[in-house]
């Protein structure tokens, strides 16, 4: 790297700090809210740090007794994990062969164009036909039904992402594998997929987040604890006559944890540069 002056380095660090602050401030505030008492939250002027730490809301939400707010919340948490998890795994399974085929056959590019075009449609336009279809198959208020809807959102997006991940993998590798006698599945499993791992990991995280944060379809297609997801459950907390902002914030903190966990798990695969060295000098 070229020489940088001390001031320039300082400037870069300050800017990085600023960006980090902008990103982390809302999260930090969410956490502070979740441990503040109601009195502190409604005080004027606003207290940036509560007088007393109140973690009772965490207890409320983790309460497993029958018909409690905690039970409903935990059920929705597991529904969210189920729906987002199923939809993500299914989307990756569909998108790997689809993305690879699209990457290796540029003539199929129009398919990708069609996929992007369906993305232009607002969810509202699709909600009514989707509702009828789910009703017909008895999949309303069902985690599998919602998972299927999410799959239809995720699969095109993940396919598109994986296609661009497969693009830079040299075709010579596949030719060499073909001459070496690898079957299609062996070629994909041993040669191609390990090289696409960083992109697959990225796609997994994005797909999971997309499904995790989805609200509109979940609100329409679920009605009770059997299938209601976190986003809807959090909205329910705000729906009553009295809104406990602290409770909503607590639910938000808990809802943020699973994606963060997956992000940390996937971090290893995100290390790029795996393709270096196989070809050319």
């Amino acid at each position, binding site marked *: 790297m070229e020489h940088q002056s001390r001031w320039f380095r300082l400037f870069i660090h300050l800017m990085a700090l600023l960006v980090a602050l902008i990103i982390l401030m809302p999260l930090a505030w969410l956490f502070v809210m979740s441990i503040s008492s109601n009195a502190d939250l409604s005080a004027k002027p606003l207290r940036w740090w509560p007088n007393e730490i109140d973690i009772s809301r965490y207890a409320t939400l983790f309460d497993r007794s029958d018909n409690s707010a905690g039970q409903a919340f935990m059920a929705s948490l597991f529904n969210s994990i189920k729906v987002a998890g199923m939809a993500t795994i299914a989307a990756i399974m569909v998108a790997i062969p689809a993305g690879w085929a699209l990457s290796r056959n540029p003539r199929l590019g129009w398919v990708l164009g069609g996929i992007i075009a369906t993305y232009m449609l607002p969810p509202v336009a699709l909600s009514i036909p989707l509702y009828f279809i789910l009703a017909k198959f008895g999949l309303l208020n069902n985690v599998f039904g919602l998972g299927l809807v999410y799959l239809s959102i995720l699969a095109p997006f993940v396919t598109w992402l994986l296609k661009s991940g497969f693009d830079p993998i*040299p075709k*010579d*590798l596949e*030719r*060499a*594998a*073909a*001459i*070496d*006698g*690898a*079957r299609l599945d*062996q070629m994909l499993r*041993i*040669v191609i997929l*390990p*090289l696409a791992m960083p992109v697959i990991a990225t796609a997994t995280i994005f797909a999971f987040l997309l499904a995790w944060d989805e609200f509109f379809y979940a609100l329409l297609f679920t009605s009770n604890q059997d299938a209601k997801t976190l986003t809807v459950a959090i909205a329910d907390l705000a729906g009553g006559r009295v809104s406990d902002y602290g409770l909503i914030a607590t639910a938000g903190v808990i809802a943020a944890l699973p994606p963060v966990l997956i992000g940390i798990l996937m971090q290893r695969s995100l290390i790029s540069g*795996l*393709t*270096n*060295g*196989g*070809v*050319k*000098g």
Partner: protein
Amino acid sequence: MSTLELREIRKSYGTLETLKGINLNLESGEFLVLLGASGCGKSTLLSMISGLSDPTSGDITLNERRLNGVHPKDRDIAMVFQSYALYPNLSVARNIGFGLEMRGIDRSTREKAVLEAAKVLQVDHLLDRKPGDLSGGQRQRVAIGRALVRKPKLFLFDEPLSNLDAKLRLEMRSELKRLHQMLGVTVVYVTHDQIEAMTLASRIAVMRGGCIEQLGTPEEIYNRPASRFVAEFMGSPPINILATQQTERGLEIASGAAVLKDLRPTDPVVVGIRPEALKTQAFDGAITLSGTVDLVELTGPEQIVSVALNDTRVTATLPADLPLALGQDIDLFVEPNRILTFDANSGDRVECLPH
């Protein structure tokens, strides 16, 4: 015994015909180089031998077995790519043994074969590394090892040295030659580098525009090129091509700089003289070209001298110790039988026998 046989191979992409009827016979143990500029169809031809693409028409047979439509893995061939195409996520040992692994060879046999191939190529100390940790030359050795280990009937090389730096390329070239002499395998080798072709080949097929322009030993290709194209493609510095005129004195070269008394071709011709055929010492029967020194480039072992003759220039490679000054008058002598004549229109070489 003929190993590889290509009959009337044609390949078209839509209306564009990239190969226009290739016929080739390859003996067992031969080292055939397909030589040509980019876009001449040499790589297309190689990929059809490998089975990565199929010819539009024509037959490919290997040891009497027709290969059209046969999957690459069932052809008993191995290929070395320009990009090496090593699997970056697998160790060197697994890279070399991949073909055996895919064919279900048991582990101990495989390891023995890998080690043997690695020893031949002097990469046995690198077996646990990943391709990314290797230098370009080592990667190329591994790629050759991967081809070697399966003991195929036919080796295909697709410009394997063009990604290496000049010094390494020279080393690997000698190594390939030594390897071929040692193992006696049959090779088809694609390159655009005429020196690689000259040094490695037992026969060269010079390709141009989807056809084989000339097929012959390196010596034939260099000294008796079939056409002006082949003559100009081979040799560095390139052959001097000079215009001629029929006069009553004979065939005048370069507006009368020299006269070939005995040659009376029926059609207009141009002549070709290799730079190293031009000498500064007179000898019996020599044709003399008189001019002035225009440019001197010392390469070390020799100097490349450009000599102005009337309205044209010729290049001569002369001994480095010859004192030369710019603008100095110089006489160059050439043996008549080292002057090649080509038809001025078609470019084909014509024999102009003395009358």
